């Protein structure tokens, strides 16, 4: 794993966040918007996991630690919590979009809009 430059995951996280921002702002399809939110959460999760990574580190579940650095466990716990929360968010979004489609017959955010002003 030493061959991967250490800031490579951060660049990937930034790229994911950037693409997802583009999708959320400029795409009109509601399903694509949900995919954008999902991508953004993956970007943030990747960032958190990359924070806790130490090159050549140990798994942080031993009671008697071998010599050498240990991968930080707190960011992994944070990531897990965030993944759990995002499952709920995405499920809720999808169910709402299904209802929007039922009522308006369209997934285009321009056409299915009822409220203005």
């Amino acid at each position, binding site marked *: 794993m030493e061959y991967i430059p250490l800031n490579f995951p951060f660049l990937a996280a930034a790229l994911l966040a950037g693409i997802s921002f583009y999708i959320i702002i400029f795409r009109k399809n509601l399903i694509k918007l949900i995919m954008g*939110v999902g991508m953004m959460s993956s970007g943030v999760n990747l960032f958190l996991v990359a924070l806790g990574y130490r090159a050549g580190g140990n798994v942080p579940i031993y009671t008697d630690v071998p010599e050498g650095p240990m991968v930080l466990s707190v960011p992994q716990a944070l990531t897990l919590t965030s993944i759990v929360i995002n499952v709920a968010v995405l499920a809720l979004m999808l169910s709402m979009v299904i*209802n929007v489609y039922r009522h308006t017959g369209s997934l285009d955010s321009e056409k299915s809009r009822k409220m203005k002003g």
Partner: protein
Amino acid sequence: MATLITHSPILIIAIPLVTAFLTPLIGMANRKVRDALVIVSLAFVVVLVFALARDVVINGIRVYTLGATSPDLTIPTGFMVPVRIILEVDGMSIFMGIIWSIVSLAAAIFSLSHIASETGQNRFYTLLLLMVAGGFGMMFTGDLFNLFVFLEIASISGAALIAFRIKFADTQEGGFKYIVISAIASLMVLFAIGLLYAQYNLLNIGAIAQVIQYTTLDKIALALLLIAFTMKAGMVPLHLWFPDAYSVAPASITGMLVITSHACMYAAFRVCFTLYGSMLDAPVAGWILIVFGLLSMFIGVTMAVFQKDVMRFMSYHAISQLGYMWVGVGVGLAVLGNAEFIAAYGRDAMSGGIFHILNHAMYKPLLFFTGGALFHCTGTRDLTKMGGLAHKMKWTTILYIIGTLSISGIPPLNGFSSKILIYESVYQFHPILTITGIITSILTLASFTKAFHSAFMGAELPEYKEVKEVPRSMVIAMVILAAGIVFITLFPSLVVDWTIHPAADALIDQEAYITAVMGAIP
């Protein structure tokens, strides 16, 4: 009693949580018992909050460490920093807690008959109680990551509640907008927490505040946190989702959503005053809050004048009223670190802003409830289609008048006392702030009078011949909030001494917050 107060920070969060999961089980057997359980548990939480408030004002900050051998053992033996989940209740947290407990009780009572004709009521109460627990968690937590978790709990249940009446198309749209905004905001918060954790290996607010350096990464984190929280609180450049989401929710939920906006505002203040505190470039941050607060005040009220939908009209007024609080506390933030200015007008401006949170939290849910009562009776939210309802709905009319007079700051009522406190103190900081505030106030009165006229005055309309006064539980809920308004009107100095000044002092005194977690600094 002492044990109960010791454990009350977690009990206030845990009791709604347990009740939330009991309601579906009990609701299957008996609906009456379920309703009684919801009301009783929320009433018990109100009692606990008041007991805790008295204790906090007298004895200072109370910390509660989950899972430790003693509740005040924040730093375990052998560690230098806190590792457990810590709840920290100071004057500002308990102030928000008082508001949230009263409004959630009123909202639950209002819901009893407001959603009586809907399906899936068990889930409605589960979500409502989860939202209550999430809100209390946001206010009481002393830990950044828990703030994120409780923010998500409150926003997910809030979004589901907005979209609760799935037979209408606009509720789905409003709920979807709310959940998208919440998801983006909370991911920004999580990213900022990651940035702070990367530098300091800490998650506790007090512990980070002790060692924070205000590096470039910290500034990015501050910007992300502020954007996220102001977006969720509905500050002006990011307010477009706000009326859409708030106008379509069931009225009881709209009243609670206003307070979740206040909770996000509280989180923004907590970040500025406590997390960054003395390291913050205070004038810049203060001016940012002031400028966008002024914009919120003015744009909110001018948009409200043109609205035909009664709930939408009140949502725009909520944006405008939130502006007063941003301005009041923003002035306090701008002079933070200058003891002379703080004593001269900074503390008063902050007290005014915080007092306005309390007043707004009483009259705005009341007005939303009256809007919900109109919708309940007439089946429309369009003001142009209503008329002559004062003949049929006497209680609603009287309560609407109380709310209107209060929101426009007519002298004896409570809206006036907080506004005058803001006007007098911010005038010394910059006169233009006071002028904008007064103009906004006049426009508010004008638009509410117009709405009153079109809904309640005039001859009886033939299509509303059959309209009756709303059911008793809705009237009780509105009377609870109106009683709050009357109480604050009659005893303003009592309220200010017991809740407002401790809250403002808690924000200014960063040292005490840190000491409560980290122990006395050697």
